[in-house]
């Protein structure tokens, strides 16, 4: 019984209510709640590193009728990332939104989104996941519409429509599962699930809904426009956190709950979709004219990489090798979360200064905004997958496991995706280092740039050099020192 698990859910919710009731103090409520949630997540992470899994039965009602919150290595590490990214983006938002009214509108929605996200990560019950998924979607749509322009509203409406369809598909699947097995608690389900047609249909429905929400090709079409028109901190959260949450759910369902019902073919299908996402997303990013669109398509590609892990995971026998790959997957997700949010925050700074984010006109950025250029470079390194970022280690591990499992198809996909990413990141950097006054006069550095810098440093330095800690957290009982395979 661990009440700690309720905190990451309750604290942002309280903050949201406070921000709603006292709009003048919205910033304080918001940042306070974010910091508190971060501290709670830190504690949870430390506990998980020691004990493997934490559990809380809400209200004291045992699972079956009651709802359980659970934190294992995967959810604890994602939780930690979310709180940190949310804190940084929230800090940035206080400078991004100049008018107090905008901030008063922003904070309650933002904190609601955070509440939903944390509840989703900690949920142990399928229907609870549905509710949190919906709440997350609604909050994200509202935030995306904050831009106010007609394009932003249209993008938000499309996101909402598509998202609702996805949720309904998911809900249908949940219903079928309940009909078949009589329980919605994930741990209990894992024990009862069988490989039969009803299960396959339910899993297919749920996965389809989640694929829409995680913007996997070809269901990615809502993402670029939603991103391009949303305010920068919102884009950061969308790319780094919201789509990641949907992917997390796919992982949970496929690896923990329904693993007996899976086949290599279905996993291969996910892998093919992921591969298409990598190539298509990277290519579109290369051709993008605007910085935020580039980042949005880059997210499509990176989500594709995450899905590439799944068929390789399933083809690897359970044991040390699979644990190693799983840790790499988490490392990739974490690094992307930090680097993409850093990239969006950096793009936001540029957008603010220059009034536009057209890549071809970014000349002189390195002189005008050296810190932001550095942030873009660091984040870009993590997006390409060059050392010392965490992505490099994760890709190394993915390729090793893919070769070991005989799944050679993914190697050229990864190679092409990486090279295209190199092309589009260095295209941006090339313009930024070039001559021109496109971005306006110099600014030594600003408070607005600091959150992005911290996020970028985590992605490229901390997660790169300290990666061994990720494995310690995610793989129960693993000792990262001196293990050789």
């Amino acid at each position, binding site marked *: 019984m661990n009440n700690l698990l309720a905190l990451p859910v309750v604290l942002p919710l309280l903050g949201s209510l406070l921000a709603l009731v006292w709009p003048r103090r919205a910033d304080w409520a918001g940042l306070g709640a974010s910091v508190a949630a971060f501290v709670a997540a830190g504690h949870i992470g430390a506990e998980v590193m020691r004990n493997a899994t934490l559990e809380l039965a809400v209200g004291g009602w045992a699972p079956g009728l009651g709802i359980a919150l659970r934190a294992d290595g995967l959810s604890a590490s994602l939780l930690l990332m979310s709180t940190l990214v949310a804190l940084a983006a929230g800090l940035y938002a206080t400078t991004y939104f100049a008018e107090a009214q905008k901030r008063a509108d922003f904070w309650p929605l933002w904190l609601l989104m955070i509440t939903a996200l944390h509840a989703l990560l900690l949920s142990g019950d399928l229907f609870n996941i549905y509710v949190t998924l919906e709440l997350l979607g609604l909050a994200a749509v509202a935030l995306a519409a904050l831009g106010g322009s007609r394009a932003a509203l249209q993008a938000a409406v499309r996101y909402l429509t598509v998202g609702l369809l996805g949720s309904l598909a998911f809900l249908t699947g949940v219903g079928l599962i309940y009909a078949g097995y009589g329980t919605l608690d994930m741990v209990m389900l894992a024990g009862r699930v069988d490989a039969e047609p009803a299960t396959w249909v339910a899993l297919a429905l749920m996965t389809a809904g989640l694929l829409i929400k995680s913007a996997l090709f070809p269901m990615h079409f809502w993402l670029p426009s939603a991103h391009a028109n949303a305010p920068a901190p919102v884009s950061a959260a969308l790319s780094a956190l919201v789509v990641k949450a949907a992917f997390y759910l796919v992982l949970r369902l496929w690896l923990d709950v329904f693993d007996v019902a899976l086949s290599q073919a279905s996993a291969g299908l996910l892998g093919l979709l992921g591969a298409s996402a990598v190539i298509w997303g990277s290519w579109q990013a290369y051709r993008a004219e605007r910085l935020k669109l580039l980042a949005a398509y880059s997210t499509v590609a990176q989500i594709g990489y995450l899905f590439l892990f799944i068929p390789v995971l399933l083809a690897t026998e359970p044991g040390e090798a699979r644990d190693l790959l799983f840790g790499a997957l988490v490392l990739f997700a974490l690094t992307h979360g930090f680097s993409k949010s850093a990239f969006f925050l950096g793009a936001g700074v540029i957008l603010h200064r220059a009034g536009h984010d057209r890549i071809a006109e970014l000349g002189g950025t390195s002189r005008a905004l050296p810190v932001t250029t550095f942030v873009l470079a660091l984040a870009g390194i993590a997006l390409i997958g060059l050392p010392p970022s965490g992505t490099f280690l994760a890709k190394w591990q993915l390729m090793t496991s893919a070769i070991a499992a005989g799944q050679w198809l993914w190697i050229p996909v990864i190679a092409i995706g990486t090279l295209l990413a*190199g092309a589009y990141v260095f295209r941006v950097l090339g313009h930024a280092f070039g001559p021109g006054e496109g971005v306006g006069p110099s600014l030594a550095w600003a408070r607005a740039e600091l959150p992005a810098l911290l996020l970028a440093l985590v992605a490229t330095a901390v997660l790169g050099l300290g990666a061994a800690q990720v494995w310690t957290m995610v793989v129960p009982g693993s000792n990262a020192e001196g293990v050789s395979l």
Partner: protein
Amino acid sequence: MSLSNSLPLLILLSSLLPGLAIFLLREESFRLRTALNLFGASVKLILVGVMIWGVFHEQVYETRWTLAPGLDLVLHADALSVLFVSLSTLLWLVTTVYAIGYLEDSPHRSRFFGFFSLCVTATVGLALAGNLFTFVVFYEFLTLATYPLVAHKGTPEAIRGARIYLAYTLAGGMALLIGAVWLRTLAGPLDFVQGGILGGMDHLDPWTLRWIFLLLIVGLGVKAALVPLHGWLPQAMVAPAPVSALLHAVAVVKAGAFGIVRVVYDVYGVEFAASLGVLALLGAAAAVTIIYGSVKALSQDNLKKRLAYSTVSQVSYIALGTAILGPLATVGGMVHLVHQGVMKITLFFAAGNYAEALGVHRVSEMDGVGRRMPGTTLAFTIGALGMIGIPPVAGFVSKWYLGLGAAESGAALWVLPVLVGSSLLNAAYFLPILYRAWFGQPPAKWPGGHTHAGRWEINQALLWPPLLTAGLALAAGLFAAAPYSPLEWARLIAEREYSL
């Protein structure tokens, strides 16, 4: 943490930390920046000296950091890494002095010197890499650190040249990565072991190993400018002279060649590689590159481009030495790593001086420079003679050993014509320059450049480095038999490689 644990890491930090600090400096903090640069370089030199002494006496220096279960970042000092590290360190110090003089009053100096230090950090890390994974990490890091240097001037040509450079090196890095990952899957963690480890593994399919070798060589060959992967090198000449000097003598090109040496000697093992038949492939590629580079150099009027093609040709001597089985050829290849570095950097320093002082960029404009700039031209002459292979400059020593090694191994009698042919071609494209420089009639007015008001022909910071490196080239040749000379060191490496 004892000295044996921390020395490799300290050597790395001695350029990383000053580099990071320099980024934060304001453009005007000239003295502080110079102080940081020289301090870092001197500290590094001292530490490397300690390492040289230690490795000679079979002391083990290793730093290990676990990045993931089963994946270690290893910095390990053996005789081969010491050879490359000392070359890098010494030439970094010299190039720093040169760069300070060359970039006087240029914009963005903090940025330049910051990346410069990162570049050296990457090179040193690569040299000290103790397993293939660490090598790949620093290899990619080197790409990152050198890109901004190539693009430094910010002109459209510079950006374009840098983009071509990036395309080649990223693609090469990918090939290297795939090869390394594949090998890891088959053979486990790949710590470098003198004599190679793959020879002892009987369960590995020879054809798979051949394909992996091809991937690795393609990946390394991009940086080492093996034909047909050399296309980036002439394009990268848009960089400022100190960058070209560093790239061609020390960092990028040597990194590729060094990687090839490591793969053949410490991963595959030279005898095993020969038995697989892959050495023949490497030798052929090297030979083609040697001749092709020299032929292309003949037709270049732009001085830096001519030197670029000369580099393409000369670095492949190292690959050639590696490809021939036998200790003498090994010695020739290894020692050329050092000799070519010292000689080529001299030539590039001189080219930079001609451009800076006289606005001379082309060979056709070089008539009579010897009279106007005798010191620089003397250095250039020594370097050029060494390239051709005329004693007592160091280049002769390396070619001599390569020739001996080829003759000894018998199966490589085709090497001698390549060596002789390329020396003739070298003479064909260097001797005319020397003739023009010393005996040509200077024009009435030089094309441009900044005339230096002072007793010396050019700013002292630009004059002494080429004279120093030319002197080193001469010394390496004259005193080749002395202890601690590059030749003796190469002999030590060969001894340790073949006796296992």
